[in-house]
Each structure stands twice: as C-alpha cells, then as structure tokens.
C-alpha cells in the first residue's frame, strides 16, 4: 500500500520492526483493522477495473431502471447502464483524486513549510503569516470560484483541490523543521560539511514527515468529498464517472429508482471512512504520545473495592513480619498491613507498593521519605484509593478509624474522602481547577458533602478557612492563576481542612515553593494541624522537611518501608544503609536533591522479581547473604525497625561519613 510505504521509508533502518508496529497499531482496534482491509480491497478493485469482466461504464447493457438483481447487483440507471460497473469506475476516479490532490498539497506544503522555517528570519515570519491567512480562507468556495471560472476538467479539479489545501501541510511541516533543526544529528550533518539544502531534504524533512503523512491521508478523504461535492453541484467533469455525478443523476429519480443514489453514496461513505480509519491508525503508530490508557498520562482514577479483602486481611496479619504493633491500649487511627499496589505493564508489573505496613496514631505526623520513584507517593494515593489507570491494589488491609477501607464500595468510600481523609496536593501541580474561582471550588466541595448547607453557610465556612490559613477573604473570587505560589498552597491547605478530616495526606506540600515560603507554610500547617488534632502522613523526598515536621518517619525504598523510627532516632542513629545515604543528601538544603548521586550502582528495578535485599545493588556493606535472602524488618529498639541484615552491626554506622566524602570528591 502506497501510504504505508512512504511512512516506512524514512525509518528504513528499523523498517522490519516498524512494519510490525504499524501492523500492531492497525490491529489494536477492530475498526482500524476493518478500515484497512476495506481500503485495500477498494484499492485492489480500482486498480484491477480494466481487467475485470465488466462492460465499459458507458455501455448500455440493459433496459433502464432495472432494480438490483443477480445480474446487475446495483441495478441499472436511466440509460440502462450497469450501476455497479459505474460505481467501480467511480472508485478509480475517487482514488485518483485522492492521490493526486493530496500529493500536490503535501508536496507543496513540505517545500513551502520547510524552506522558510529552515532559513528562519523575516521570510519565515512572512510565510507563517501567509499560512495562517490561507487557513482561514474557505477552501471549498475558492475551489468553486476557480472551477466555475476556469473549467471543470477532472485533472484541473484535482490540481485546484491540491492547490487550495496546502497551508495545513505547510504549517505542520514548519513546526517539524523548527523542532528538528537544533537536534544533534542535524548539527552533525552540518558540521560534516553537508550543504543547507542537503541537510534540509536529507536529514530534516524525512524525519519530520510522519505527521505530514498522517495529514495527507486525511486530505485524501477531504479531496474525495470535495470532488464529489463539486460534481453534485454540477461543477464536475461531464465525461467522467464520478460518484458525485452519479448521486446528482440519481437525485432526479429518487423515488422511482432510489438505488441510483443509494449505492454510489454508500460506496463513497465506506471509502472515505476507510481512509480516515487508516489515517487514525497511522497517527497512533507515528505519534506514540497519542496512545492512551496506560501510565501516569491517564491521571489518577478511583480504585474499585478489593475483592475478598477479609481473607487478605487475615493473611496480612499473618504475613506482617515483626512490624510495629499498634501502640498498646490506644488503637491506631490508621493501620496499614501488607498493602500491595502494582502497575500493570505490557512486560509485567511494577511493584510500586510491595507489602507496606505501618500505623499512624491520632494527631501524629508520620513521614514517608525516599527518592522519587520509590513508591512513597503511590502509598499516599493508594490510601485514598486513587490509582493511575493501570494501577491495581492486589492485597493488604487499610483499617481507618477501626474500619476496613479497601472493602468499601466506591460510592461508600466517596463519603470517607475529604470528610475523614483529605489530601494536600503540591501546588506546582495544577491541583486547583483553573477555570473556577477558588472560593467557588471550595463552596461546591462543601455542599457536595453537606447537601443541607445553604450557600451562605458554605460561604461562611470557606471564609473562616481563608482566615485560618491567612488569605484575604477577597481572594475567594480569584482564579488560581491570579494567586502566588504560596497563596495557592495556602488555599490548598484550606481546602484540605474544609470538612475537618481526621487524617491528612500531604504529597510534597511545599516542594515547589520558594525556600523561605516553604518554611513559613510548613510551620503554619503544623500549627494548624496540632491545634485541630489532625493526623498527617507527609510524603516528601526532603529529609529536612521530615526533621521539621514529623513525629515518626518511614524510609521507603523500592516499594517497601526499609526503616521506621521516631524522627530523632532516624537522624541520630539510623540503622539502614539507605537511610544513612539519604540523609547525606540533606546538606544541600537550598536545592533539594531528587537523586542520590553519592550512591553507586543502579536503583532497584521495580519490574524485576526481587531476590534478596533490594538495596544490595547499591549497598556498600553488601555480602552474599544480602543477594540471596530478603531481610525482614529487624527491631533495633522499641519503635525502631530496619530492613537490613546488619541492622545491629556497628559497620552500618560508618556509612554516612564515607559516602559524604565520595559526594564531595
């Protein structure tokens, strides 16, 4: 097929796998597969027309107005010509129009879009302005004017359609050139002494073609529709068998011989649809970002209840390896046991949360700290049962205020959300709706949970919260983009306190902010939280933040908690090599570090089947035992657990100093 061939060409080095992936893109959807098969069939028939045992399209084979029958499957027309023959010849014309028009349009677009963009400067400005203007000029009418002034020969019509639709291709090509021009391989070709035009047409244009080609297939369907439309308006070539013309002729006998209009139109619909479906498949194949439904891109969605969770709870209790027992007589506010949440990928699963157990007491601040990608954020979201689209809670138990949360239905868990368990989002994230006033967002949320509240009551509540977090009440009518980062974060804190929850989950609440504002907001948040007696799980990569706010800290690595202790102990006497390494990323307080540069080795890949200690690949103390045997949580002292075979070994305590030296070296 011509279309696919032109696509594969620039990628010929990887053509075998490219074909495979293109096939995958087609087969990914039944509709694309059907469209492709149909298009191939139509192309084959159109190509083979002269060889088929069909009478010439103009021959009078029978009496006029024969209804469809075995001999004449689509019937005969007013002159006694076989309609099916004519429809098939029409396909030949339609496809020619599609190819020629789209070809001219794409070629013009590529040349006019790439050259000015490559050279840049005033010409580029002029040309891009021209594209914009021509995009607004209604092309169909331009074609009508030209054709009615200059004639209706079908070749001319094809050329005119091509000439009036190029600006789109040109604009796409231009942006491709602008993106590709600064790339290394282009610069390398220049440095190797290639001339400008050679670089442009050998290196840039072939790599920039994919979206232009996709646009080309869509142009083809537009061209077919345009030509048919012209023919229907009487501006077609009287000497051709065009679908549009057939429909025009059929119109006169609409009630007498409806098949004359039905079949050409139906064929046309199928052809244009097939072109569009192939264009779609091409688009999915050529721009992977279009593929959707997996990963972070799809956002966080609501998780269904965990099936058979009573059983897993019992299993979890048994599996719970020496984790901190709930604090004597006072039952924990939140009791998480053996929580597992994996992301499904094509190649397997990512063990984002892999058997996590911890407890949070009433009014306590509990920190989850670790590098980005360790799973700490996933833990927080899993508690609220918000998961990426491919995330799945596989087991464990979350008891909150004495009640199992994972078993609740989605509808009944919605009542827990915000009412009892709320979240503080990172303000750099677009956590507030950009097209709603901040005050309105909050009053709406309030009235969602308190349907009996009058608007005035909701408003009063929001005003009180604005006072509480120190934002001027007048700001209720501001939009998020009208607030500073610090003020937005305060608004987010206010939103989280809206219904006085008992547990707050704060995900990097101040990371995006200026350092001075960070401290200020953190301190205010702490004061408020303590005053209202709200417990909080603070998720952060920043040990400094932990030190300032948390009562107890859990260090997360590779989907597991590797060390847990009260904050003073963690800082004074950490017993996991990872914790100690992590702490030595603290000195650089101004620029919180996301990656531990001081640690050699590759972080544990959450997709692999874990054998032994997950930190063994980077650990300076690693021994054979570590690679063989996964360490349990080892109690160091009451309330202090470490997932390291050497938790009680004095050598652990030497780690901080040496890695710190390495970092500086």
């Amino acid at each position, binding site marked *: 097929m011509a279309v696919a061939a032109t696509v594969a060409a620039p990628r010929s080095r990887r053509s075998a796998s490219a074909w495979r992936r293109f096939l995958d893109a087609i087969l990914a959807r039944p509709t694309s597969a059907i469209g492709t098969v149909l298009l191939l069939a139509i192309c084959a028939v159109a190509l083979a027309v002269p060889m088929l045992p069909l009478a010439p399209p103009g021959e009078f084979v029978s009496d006029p107005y024969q209804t469809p029958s075995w001999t004449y499957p689509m019937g005969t027309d007013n002159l006694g010509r076989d309609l099916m023959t004519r429809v098939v010849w029409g396909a030949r014309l339609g496809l020619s129009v599609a190819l020629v028009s789209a070809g001219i349009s794409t070629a013009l677009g590529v040349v006019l879009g790439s050259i000015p963009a490559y050279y840049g400067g005033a010409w580029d400005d002029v040309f891009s302005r021209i594209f914009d203007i021509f995009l607004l000029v209604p092309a169909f009418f331009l074609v009508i004017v030209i054709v009615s002034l200059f004639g209706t020969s079908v070749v001319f019509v094809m050329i005119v359609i091509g000439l009036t639709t190029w600006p789109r291709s040109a604009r796409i090509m231009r942006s491709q050139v602008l993106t590709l021009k600064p790339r290394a391989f282009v610069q390398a070709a220049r440095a190797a002494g290639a001339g400008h035009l050679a670089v442009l047409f050998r290196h840039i244009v072939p790599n920039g073609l994919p979206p232009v080609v996709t646009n080309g297939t869509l142009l083809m369907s537009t061209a077919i529709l345009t030509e048919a439309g012209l023919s229907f308006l009487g501006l077609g070539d009287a000497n051709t068998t065009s679908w549009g013309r057939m429909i025009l002729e059929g119109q006169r006998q609409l009630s007498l011989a409806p098949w004359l209009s039905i079949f050409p139109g139906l064929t046309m619909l199928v052809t244009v649809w097939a072109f569009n479906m192939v264009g779609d498949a091409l688009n999915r194949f050529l721009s992977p970002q279009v593929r959707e*439904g997996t990963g972070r891109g799809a956002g966080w969605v609501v998780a269904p209840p965990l099936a058979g969770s009573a059983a897993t709870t019992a299993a979890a209790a048994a599996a719970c390896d020496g984790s901190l027992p709930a604090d004597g007589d006072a039952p924990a506010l939140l009791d998480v046991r053996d929580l597992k949440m994996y992301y499904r990928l094509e190649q397997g699963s990512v063990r984002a949360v892999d058997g996590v157990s911890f407890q949070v007491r009433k009014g306590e601040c509990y920190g989850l700290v670790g590098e980005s990608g360790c799973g700490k954020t996933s833990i927080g979201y899993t508690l609220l049962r918000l998961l990426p689209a491919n995330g799945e809670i596989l087991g464990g138990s979350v008891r909150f205020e004495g009640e199992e949360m994972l078993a609740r239905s989605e509808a009944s868990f919605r009542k827990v959300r915000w009412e009892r368990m709320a979240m503080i989002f990172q303000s750099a994230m677009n956590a507030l709706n950009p097209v709603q006033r901040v005050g309105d967002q909050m009053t709406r949320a309030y009235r969602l949970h308190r349907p009996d509240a009058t608007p005035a009551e909701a408003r009063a509540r929001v005003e009180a919260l604005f006072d509480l977090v120190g934002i001027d009440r007048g700001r209720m009518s501001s939009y998020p983009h009208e607030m500073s980062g610090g003020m937005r974060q305060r608004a987010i804190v206010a939103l989280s306190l809206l219904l006085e929850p008992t547990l707050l989950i704060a995900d990097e609440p101040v990371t995006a902010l200026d350092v001075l504002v960070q401290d200020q907001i953190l301190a205010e948040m702490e004061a408020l939280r303590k005053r209202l007696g709200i417990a909080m799980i603070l998720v952060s990569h920043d040990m400094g933040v932990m030190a300032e706010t948390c009562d107890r800290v859990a260090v997360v690595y590779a989907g597991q908690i590797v060390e847990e202790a009260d904050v003073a102990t963690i800082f004074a006497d950490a017993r996991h090599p990872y914790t100690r390494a992590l702490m030595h990323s603290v000195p650089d307080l101004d620029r919180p570090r996301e990656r531990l540069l001081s640690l050699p080795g590759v972080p544990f890949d959450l997709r692999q089947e874990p054998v032994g200690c997950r930190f063994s690949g980077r650990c300076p103390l690693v021994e054979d035992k570590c690679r063989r045997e996964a360490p349990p949580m080892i109690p160091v002292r009451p309330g202090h657990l470490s997932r390291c075979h050497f938790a009680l070994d004095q050598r652990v305590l030497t780690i901080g100093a040496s890695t710190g030296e390495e970092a500086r070296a």
Partner: protein
Amino acid sequence: MRLRRFLVLRMIQLVPVLLVVVVLNFVLIHLAPGDVALAMAGENPDPVYMAAIRERFGLDKPLHVQLLTYIARIAQGDLGDSFRSRRPVTETLLERVPATLLLVATALAFSSLLGTIVGTWIARRAGGGLDVWVSGLAVASYSVPVFWLGLMLILFLAIRVPVFPPSGMMSVTGVAPGLARWLDILHHLVLPALALSTVWFGQYVRIARSSVLQVLSEDFVTTARAIGYPERQVLFGHVLPNAMLPVVTVLGLQLGLVLAGAVLTETVFAWPGLGQLVYESILARDTPLIVGSYVVMGVCVVAASLLVDLVYAALDPRVEL
C-alpha cells in the same frame, strides 16, 4: 474599554485575510479566459450595461488602478450586479443570510452539544469497546457526503414515510403568520438540520474526546476525585469546562468547512439560503454572484473567528482580552 481595544486589534489582524480573499478574486477574474467585463457582466449583456460595468470598475485603466478600484468598491459593499437579475449582488446575498444562519446555527448548536457530550462520555474508558466503536461511528458521521445523506433522509423520511417536508423552508400553501408559521419553518428545518448535524457531530466527538483525555490527566481532576465527587460530576463539572476550550477553537477554525456543508445541504433541500444561491448562480453562470458569495463567506469566517476568540476569553479566565 479593554474589550473594545481587543476587538479593534483583532479586526486589524483579520484585515489581511479579507484582503487575500479580495485580491484572489481579482486575480482569478483577470486570469479567467475571456473579457473581464464579460465575466463580470454575464454572457449576453447589452453594450450599455457593459460600458457601465467598465466605467464602474475602471476596467480600461492600468491593472493596479483596477485592483485599487476593485478593493475600494468591495470595501463599500459593492460586489457588482447579478447579471441575471441586474440587482446588486450584496443585496441579493444579504436577503439569503437569515435562512442560512438559522440552518447553520441550529445544526452547529445541536452537533457541538451532542458531540461534546458523547466525546466526553467515551473518553472515560479510552481504548475500551464502547470508545472504539463509537469513535468509528463518529468517523463515519463525517465521512458521509452530506448531500447524499440529505437525499437518504428525503427518501426515507419524506418520500417513503412522509413525516417531514422534502424541501423548502415554508409550505407553498401558505400558513397564517405567527406561531403557526414558525412551527411550519421548524418542520421544514428538521431534515436539513439533521443532515448537517450528523456530518459535524463526528468532529465534535473526536475533538471533545481527545481534549477530555488530555484534561483527565490534569491534577485538578485528581483533586476532584479525592474530594469525593462522583465520576459523572468529575467529568461534566470539572473536566468538561476545561476541555471545552479546544472544542471552541476548532469550531471557529472549521467554519469554512461548515459553510461548504451548508451549500451542499441547502442545494439538496432547496433551502433558500446562501448555499442555494451559490448553486443557482453556478447553474446560471452568474459570475458576480459566485465571486460575491465567496467574499461574503470570507467575511463570515473572519467574523466567526473573532466571535470564537471572545467566547474563548469568556470561558477561560486565564485569557486576558
């Protein structure tokens, strides 16, 4: 005050578009085979009328003077006379505007509303069965040649089962003015509006779907879910207001295409609007009318893009006028 400055500014930006349309027209008329005066006056004009046309458009002057005269004429709203009726083109065109406006506005409102809702709904489970088949159907809806769809509607809903009138805008027998007349017009409007809406519907499904998909990954959607909004409220209360913005943009950009569909639809249903006028002038080779309607379409597209900017600004508080 700001609004006025914005409008003036945008209009200045849009002038080049109109200029291109007018200059294109000028160039095309002059390139066309045959005498320019003949092209502007029609095929069998009397000599007196030809002389008048030559005089009015300065056809015996140098080319650049002709161009300036032509632009000046059009700027004053003078598009020449229809040679068939000898009436000014502008007047003839303006008469037809209300009918087209009624048809286009109805179909646009219908298709964009329904398309957006359907697109939003299928975006929830992108890649799922419902999404795949509804998307396929949406593509089919804009792959239909609108004139053929019109014929099929006439065939099945006006001829076979005569529920709706097959053509025109009002009953020939005449209906008493007032409510009855409006109902009569509405009755005639159903089929053409249905044909046009179907063709546009698919576009809106697609745009809304991809736009909603993009917005779904935004953080404020997570916020809404965390707050406990039921999924439908998340979708229509939080996602849609944001996803509307690209829909509006595309609506404006595609107006040229929209009008093309209108011409074909009006032709099929003999709806007495601009489109049918274009068709009639093609049949009658009434060049001034064809060219004139092209200018008017250009003006409409430009005006619509202006309107879209205003709507966009009203929908998105981040856009400052």
